[in-house]
């Protein structure tokens, strides 16, 4: 509900002509949108182009957005349609091995659609997985448990507090410290 309220406020600002508010909406959703697009489109560059196109389409359509649904569901709908249109357009061109739209929709994880088949892609994925696993292993037990329950199992802070028999404030602090520690290990990737 809090997230929806923040979105509604930003949408109103955009509808009043404040383009900066749209930048905030992009910051909020760029990760989710690119992840969503990558379920449909395997090539990372194309996926980013489609994600960008989705945001631009959303901006153009925002004046007619009346808030009947949540902003993010509306944005997801635009993104899925943009990805489908992109695939359909490509399908009309000479075949390059693009997968079927319906297959993409049903493919939950989307891992097959990504660029893992190339040697570079595979190496990057394996290396990255190894680095992340090592960063996780090096964390103190309580930090590793907290971040794992949050990121891998998707538990809420309340649920983690119950599992770990500690206050919610402690969970929040442990997750934060785990992220800080992982960030230090991955710093060179973010540079």
């Amino acid at each position: 509900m809090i997230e929806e309220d923040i979105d509604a406020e930003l949408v109103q600002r955009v509808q009043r002509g404040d383009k900066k508010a749209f930048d905030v909406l992009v910051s909020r959703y760029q990760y989710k949108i690119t992840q969503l697009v990558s379920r449909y489109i395997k090539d990372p560059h194309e996926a980013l182009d489609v994600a960008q196109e989705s945001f631009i389409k959303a901006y153009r359509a925002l004046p007619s957005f009346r808030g009947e649904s949540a902003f993010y569901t509306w944005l997801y709908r635009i993104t899925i349609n943009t990805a489908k249109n992109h695939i359909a357009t490509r399908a009309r061109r000479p075949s390059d091995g693009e997968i079927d739209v319906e297959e993409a929709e049903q493919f939950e994880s989307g891992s097959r659609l990504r660029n893992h088949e190339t040697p570079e892609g595979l190496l990057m994925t394996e290396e990255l997985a190894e680095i992340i696993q090592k960063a996780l292993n090096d964390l103190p037990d309580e930090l590793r448990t907290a971040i794992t329950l949050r990121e891998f199992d998707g538990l809420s802070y309340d649920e983690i507090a119950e599992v770990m028999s500690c206050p919610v404030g402690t969970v929040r602090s442990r997750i934060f410290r785990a992220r800080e520690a992982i960030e230090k290990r991955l710093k060179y990737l973010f540079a």
Partner: protein
Amino acid sequence: MIDEKRAENLSALLDGTLGYPQARKLWKQMETDAELKAQWDRYNRISCLLGSNPGVLPDPGFAARVSAAIAHEPTVLAPHAIRRRVTERVLSTALAASLAMVAVVVGKSMLNPGTSGNPLQVAQARYAPLPTSTPVAEVDADFQNYLVMHNETAYLAGAQGLLPYARVVSVQTDR
């Protein structure tokens, strides 16, 4: 370098556990604070990478490219959408105020049943006899009888009663 408190708030924001005022404040700050926004991006990347299938991550210039593209778009206002939102907010505020008023009045009368809000007195006041503007007692008795009889038989001649129905009833009641 952002301070630890704000970094921890960002981490909580990523997990959707920050309260509305704090979340709103952070987003407002991120509009102008590049360092804060960069930290937000790093936390998002870590979160994506920790997932079992990280997928494609936006490159650091992604948001800037979208922003540049939007800058070339014409600004189109949506007055209807805004007005509707504002109206909804005003209505919901008015409704909340009305409910609060009802709650105060009801609560007050429940707490102090013997004071100003005595329901019995209100009922008596509502059903007190209205003052009659027509001096019924002063009308001649023979004339009243005539009017009543006329009213009862007027329909035979296809005519309407000469007097209003209420007046006749009033006379009958007095008889």
